[in-house]
Every structure is written in structure tokens, then in C-alpha cells.
């Protein structure tokens, strides 16, 4: 996977900027794809790097969304501050939850994260005063980004604002993956028994990864709430948790550019299919997912790496 990992970020960024000029009427869609990418990247730090699965990652996404929405209702309308607050609150929540999530094996982790997800969903549903319950929160207005760039109707500010966050997160995770800590996470995924023998505190590493991952998921949620001016229960629901797992897997879990492609690919597909057939779009998604498992071994990134290797061998 190494070949794809190095240097795929710049072409992706150029593609995104080209999209701004080529398809100016689709800026809102692009923005949502960037946000999905941030969310998928946050999740893949767990699944792809540390090998820790979760079916409740939307809890942090939703927490980030509500955090900035609630703060905006109370007067903190500057988006970047809202993002930072969402990052901190979601990361703290992840840190608190890490004790019950990180222990055990994959199966228990799936059940525990699923359970936490349902609990948080119900809690948010009950706390109507804070979250607006089933109606969600929409009675807030975000101020201009950094006091300079107002969110416009065409979505240009939202586009660049989300893209900037995606680029920062991408770069951060890319550096993190190559750091000794990132290597240790991959070591934990591959041979957790071996790690203590080289002096690596497995639990502490996993707790750190979980906290970072939760914080970034919160960023993504806050971005969505700010750019859509809405925070709702589905943002921390099970479907969103399952979706992020699909995106990471489709893109190629463990590969940062792959996960971005997976998130944008699945996000776009969902949008296109639901426009084509509002009734049966899930059928299309289901078929694509199943095909991807059989055809794309290791997701988009895995298939790309295999293709590059084959071309090189032939050359």
C-alpha cells in the first residue's frame, strides 16, 4: 500500500479544486463529501491503523454537531471556535469511553460500541431542551469564518472551509501514521501480544488513538452542523456509524487516500442513486458494497496498489 500512500494527497486536492471550477452548481454536494471524508478518516485511524472496530463512531460525530449548534444558540457563532469546542468535547467523551471500548476483542467491541451508540441516541432524544429531540436544532446562525468569510448561498465559503479542514486532518493523520506512534498502532493491529515486549503500552496507545479519533469525528460533525445549519439525531445514529465503516472498507482501510476515495465515492453514489430512484437507492448501494468485497480486494486503495504493481512488473 505504500506506493499509493505517498503523494496521493496532492492530486486529490487538485481534483477537489478543479471540481470547484468545473461543477459550481454542486458545491453543497462537494462540501458534504469533504465532511464525510473527515469522518471516515477519523474512523479509519481505529479500524485501519490500530485494528479496532466500532459500530458507534457516529456518537462523536453527533456530539461535535450538537456542541457547535448549542454553542451557536448561546452566542458563540464563530465557526472555527465552534470546531475547536467540538473537537475538545468529542475527544473528552472518547477518552471517557475508552476504558469500556478498548478492552476485549473485536466482537465485544462491536457490541459495546453499538450499545453506547443506542444509549447516546436515546439520551439525545430525551434531552429535548438541549438537543431539540426528534426535531433537531436549526434555530442558530453561524457567524463568518474567522470573522471574515460569511457562509454564502452558493456554498463557496462552506466548500473551502470544509476542504481546509479536510486537508489539515489528512496531513495530520498522514504524519501521525508515519510517526513511531502510528507504527505502534499498526504493530498492535498485527501482533498485539508482541507489543509489550518492545516496551509499548498497548492500552495507553489505544486510548490515545481513540481520543484523537473521537475528536476528529467531532470536527466532522461540527462541520456538517455549521454548513447545513442543522444538528439532528440521525447525526449520531446507528446508520451513520455503519456508513462510516462501509466507507473506510470500500476505500481501503489503512490507506489515507483510499479512505478519502471511499468516502467520496460512497457519498456521491448515495446522492446519485437517491436522485435517480428515491425509493430503491439502497438496493444500488447494497449491490455496490457486495461487489466491492468480491472485486476490490483491499478496497479502492488495495485494487490500485495491485494494478500499479502489475503494470510495473509488465514494464
Amino acid at each position, binding site marked *: *500500500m*505504500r506506493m499509493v500512500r505517498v503523494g496521493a494527497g496532492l492530486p486529490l486536492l487538485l481534483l477537489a479544486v478543479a471540481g470547484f471550477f468545473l461543477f459550481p452548481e454542486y458545491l453543497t454536494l462537494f462540501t458534504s463529501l469533504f465532511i464525510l471524508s473527515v469522518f471516515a478518516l477519523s474512523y479509519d485511524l481505529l479500524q485501519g491503523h490500530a485494528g479496532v472496530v466500532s459500530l458507534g463512531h457516529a456518537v462523536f460525530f453527533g456530539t461535535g454537531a450538537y456542541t457547535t449548534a448549542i454553542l451557536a444558540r448561546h452566542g458563540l457563532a464563530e465557526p472555527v471556535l465552534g470546531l475547536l469546542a467540538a473537537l475538545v468535547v468529542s475527544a473528552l467523551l472518547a477518552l471517557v469511553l475508552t476504558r469500556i471500548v478498548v478492552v476485549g476483542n473485536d466482537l465485544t467491541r462491536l457490541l459495546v460500541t453499538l450499545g453506547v451508540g443506542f444509549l447516546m441516541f436515546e439520551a439525545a432524544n430525551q434531552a429535548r431542551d438541549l438537543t431539540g429531540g426528534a426535531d433537531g436544532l436549526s434555530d442558530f446562525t453561524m457567524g463568518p469564518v474567522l470573522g471574515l468569510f460569511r457562509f454564502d448561498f452558493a456554498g463557496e465559503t462552506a466548500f473551502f472551509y470544509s476542504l481546509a479542514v479536510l486537508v489539515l486532518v489528512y496531513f495530520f493523520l498522514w504524519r501521525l501514521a508515519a510517526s*513511531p506512534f502510528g*507504527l*505502534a498502532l*499498526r*504493530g498492535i493491529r*498485527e*501482533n498485539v*501480544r*508482541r*507489543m*509489550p*515486549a*518492545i*516496551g*509499548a*503500552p*498497548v492500552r495507553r496507545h489505544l486510548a490515545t488513538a481513540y481520543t484523537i479519533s473521537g475528536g476528529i469525528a467531532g470536527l466532522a460533525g461540527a462541520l456538517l452542523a455549521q454548513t447545513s445549519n442543522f444538528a439532528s439525531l440521525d447525526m449520531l445514529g446507528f446508520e451513520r456509524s455503519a456508513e462510516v465503516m462501509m466507507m473506510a472498507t470500500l476505500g481501503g482501510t489503512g490507506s489515507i487516500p483510499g479512505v478519502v476515495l471511499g468516502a467520496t465515492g460512497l457519498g456521491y453514489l448515495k446522492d446519485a442513486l437517491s436522485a435517480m430512484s428515491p425509493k430503491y437507492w439502497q438496493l444500488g448501494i447494497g449491490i455496490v458494497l457486495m461487489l466491492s468485497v468480491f472485486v476490490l480486494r483491499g478496497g479502492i486503495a488495495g485494487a490500485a496498489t495491485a494494478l500499479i504493481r502489475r503494470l510495473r512488473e509488465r514494464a
Partner: protein
Amino acid sequence: MPLLEVERLTAGYGEAVVLEEMSLSVDDGEGLAVLGRNGVGKTTLMLAIMGHARRLSGSLRWQGTEIGGTPAYQRARMGLGWVPQERDIFPSLTVEENLLVAGRPGAFGLKDAYDLFPRLKERRRNMGDKLSGGEQQMLAICRTLMTNPRLLLLDEPFEGLAPVIVEELEATLRRLRAEKGFATVIVEQHAEDALALSDRAIVLDRGKIVLEGRSADLLADFAQVRRWIAV
């Protein structure tokens, strides 16, 4: 004060007792060979020292400090370096990443690893699963050295390797001990190799020490060792 002191250690897995009331010590810079047939507790002794087997009673002291209840990762950080029998190279990390993941500040770094085994430098971009058995063993040893240990525990380092490679590894281990003053504990089926690499030896049978002596003496009178290790 000995570097490592094991006193009346009883250890095993779950309820099963493998080692019974074992006592031994290793001084700084000293080489100890642990000999014996399959299944007499040699690997369990290593696992117990590193904190991976269950200690039922007895004590383990590292430079005078009790470490019987210390988590495994902290023992590694204190200077106990273990090269497991399975080698356990991370398959999707490159050779270099396999080394860096274990890196801890100290005298031994990436450059030293490549000086020790130039072959690893040639292979540094190879994935961990694209290595020969000998290269894997070189990598496993260097990865442990990257943690800058004072005591090196080697579990059957020559198992399954071609004689040429075994000779190369033996020469390297001898040089490491002479130049850097590592203490080593080496577990081996090939008793002669282990005796040649150590100052002192113990022979285990059924979880107990049945023979103990200077390696040179045991080599000179090998018949008494053979009694305990012949299959």
C-alpha cells in the same frame, strides 16, 4: 548485586504449573545458557521473566527491585530485551519500520542495526513477510536491541536456520557481548552452540534445575549434559 535474580519462582499458565521453585541469577555482562529437552519449561522461564506467563509464587528482581507485578511493557522499558522464538516480525511493516517501532532512546539506533547486519540495510524497504528465516531472525534481534536492553533473552535463535547463517549469528552475538557488554540468557536445543556462547549454564528437566555449571566445564564433560537433553 546481580542484574536479574529469580528466587523460588513458581510459574505457569492458568492453573497449570510449569516451573517449580526455580532460582537463578544473571550478573551484568554475564552469559547464561538454559538447556533441556522440549517442554521442560525453558520458554516458560523467559515468558515469566518478561511478564507473559502467570507467576504463582516466588520473586523476580531486576537490579534489586522487585518486578514480579510489573506490567510487561514496563519490564521491556527497564532494560529486559526478549527475542521470542516465533520472531513475530510485523508483516505489513517494512524492515525499517519494524526497527523504528521498537526504537527507544539509547546507544543503539537504526545505524547500529544496519552496521550489525548490513543485509537488513539492503532489505530496509522490504515488507516484514518478504524475508528469509535468517533475515527475520536478524531483524528480530535488532528490533529488540532497538529498545536498548541490558539483558538479552534469546529463545531458540538458531532454530530452523541454515548452518552458515547460524555461524554468522553466533559471531555477531559473541561480538555484541564482547563489545557492548550485554548480559544474555540463551535458550537452545543445540546445547553445544549455547554453551559456546555463554559463561554459565543451567539444565532444566520438568520445571526444575537439574544441572548447573560453568559452560566450559560442561562442554569438557558433555556426557553429563547429554544425559538430560538426549531425546
